[in-house]
């Protein structure tokens, strides 16, 4: 009798645990976007530094609009 009860309990536990719903929450941060932006910013700065002589030759043009200052 006791063995039967124990077997039933084990069986019930197995059934309950196998059917238990699990929620998988993915908490990963969107790292690749940050990395790409960071690389672009660093590359832009390298290019601006390297070509800084252009502004002195070219009458200090605005880098965003291409317009020259009066």
């Amino acid at each position, binding site marked *: 009798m006791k063995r039967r009860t124990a077997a039933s309990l084990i069986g019930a536990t197995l059934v309950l645990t196998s059917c238990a719903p699990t929620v998988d929450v993915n908490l990963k941060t969107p790292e690749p976007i940050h990395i790409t932006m960071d*690389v*672009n910013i*660093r*590359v*832009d700065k*390298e*290019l*601006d530094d*390297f*070509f800084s*002589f*252009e502004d002195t*030759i*070219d009458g200090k*043009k605005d*880098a*965003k*609009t*291409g*317009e*020259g200052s009066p």
Partner: protein
Amino acid sequence: MKTSLTRCLTALAVAGLLGASSAQGADRLAALQASFKARYADLLALKRDGKVGETAEGTVAAVRAAYLKDAKVKAVVDTENKDRAELYAILARKEKTTAEVVAKRNAVRNAQKASVGEYLRDSKGNWKKKAK
């Protein structure tokens, strides 16, 4: 004792090699910058004449193939693109990215800096005059 001396010497050798390589890179960048600077006025004049424009790939190109018959135009375009390719490779190594990424960033930068009336070529190969 012998092992730690060997390790110390190896570390010094590696540091020396890295330092030498970095100095060489800086020297090459300075030489490249001088080359760009020497050519800049000619390139600017060709852009303002509408013979040469910036491309979406970070290179310069003749707006019409016929303009390349002019030896000066061809020389400026070829040398500029050769130097740019080397610059993009150096900066890509430095920033741990690809030369294509650096080239694209420079294309965006040059399109923004272009004066009104200068030619810009999009990724489909179409030339357009910068309007504003």
